[in-house]
């Protein structure tokens, strides 16, 4: 005689499930909030200090002969020079067809100067009055940043005595004609 099958096995299992709807609501609200508060612009900056007159007298400066690397941007060419003639003057003509300064060549000339004077960090930039802001930013990029494709520039670390590769060209850019009339 067969026994009656167990009821326990046959009884329907009550399905246990988490109610995901409120969690879904929260997520949708959070995503909407994040999208609204998100800034899609990625802004970067380049710092520049106000130029100050050197405290040293003219005679002292003539004796010291600092590099005072200067980049003058004219209407048809950019000139890289030193007022104390520590480097020979380099003139880079603007690109043909009104293309503005030849930023690549200016950069390579500045890298050559950096290799000669690895400790130098400052560059005085003298733009013309009509230089647009994007040209100014391009010139500052060319003067401040070292690319991976540039020849390495080494500087001796005074504390460790080890040569270290520089990762910036002339990071301190100062506007030379800011306070003057030129």
């Amino acid at each position, binding site marked *: 005689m067969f026994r009656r099958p167990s009821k326990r096995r046959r009884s329907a299992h009550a399905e246990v499930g988490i109610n995901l709807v409120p969690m879904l609501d929260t997520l949708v609200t959070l*995503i909407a909030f994040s999208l609204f*508060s998100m800034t899609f612009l990625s802004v970067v*900056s380049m710092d520049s200090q*106000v130029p100050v007159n050197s405290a040293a007298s003219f005679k002292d400066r003539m004796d010291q002969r600092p590099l005072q690397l200067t980049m003058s941007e004219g209407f048809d060419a950019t000139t890289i020079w030193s007022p104390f003639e520590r480097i020979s003057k380099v003139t880079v003509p603007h690109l043909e067809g009104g293309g503005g300064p030849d930023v690549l060549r200016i950069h390579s000339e500045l890298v050559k100067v950096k290799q000669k004077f690895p400790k130098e960090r400052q560059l005085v930039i003298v733009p013309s009055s009509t*230089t647009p802001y994007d040209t*100014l*930013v391009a010139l500052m990029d060319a003067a401040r940043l070292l690319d991976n494709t540039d020849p390495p520039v080494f500087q001796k670390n005074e504390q460790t005595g080890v040569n270290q590769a520089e990762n910036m060209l002339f990071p301190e850019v100062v506007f030379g004609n800011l306070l003057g009339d030129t």
Partner: protein
Amino acid sequence: MPHFRSIRNRRARKRLDGRNMELNLTSMMDILVIILVFLLKSQASNTSVFIGAEGAEMPYSRTPDVPPDSLHVAVTREYLAFQDQKLLYFNSPTGAPPAPAPKAPPGTKSHEPEEPLKLEIRKEDLDDGGRRITPLYDALVQAREKSELLRAKSGARTDQGEPLPFDGILAIQADKRVPYDMLRRVMYTAAVAGYKTYRLLAMKKEE
């Protein structure tokens, strides 16, 4: 037979309605969580507080430095603003905002010349030989004094017990075609008002 089929269908429908139909939301939850994590991550990596000034097309730069929060000036093709407050309009004899330029019909490309902009300021708004912009100078001095007052009242002190000095940093956000002549006036005005560091803003160029 159509009559019986109909009754059968009705019964089947009844049975379906009785069953607890639930949408499986787990996969949708997974997608939403991934989107949320992605959004939060990209929000955390972009800490810049500056937003583009209305009507200004900023240039691109390769520099990696992200600007921290500071006082800022915006120079667009139409106006000069300090802390999002418009101080003056260029090329406006009365100082009032210029009439909006007529919109080009859709589908036509604007042929703006790529020569530098000519931005004129009224003589009443300039002094010091045309180098200092008076409304900007007033606003900058006011902001500096407010900052110095807040620093004097705050508990933070230097080693000598003095209030923390005014940092004097001014972020400058300009349209890419604004000529250096106008930027020089802005920077000169800032220098006279006691701001010693300029932070030139640009858009990050992706390499």
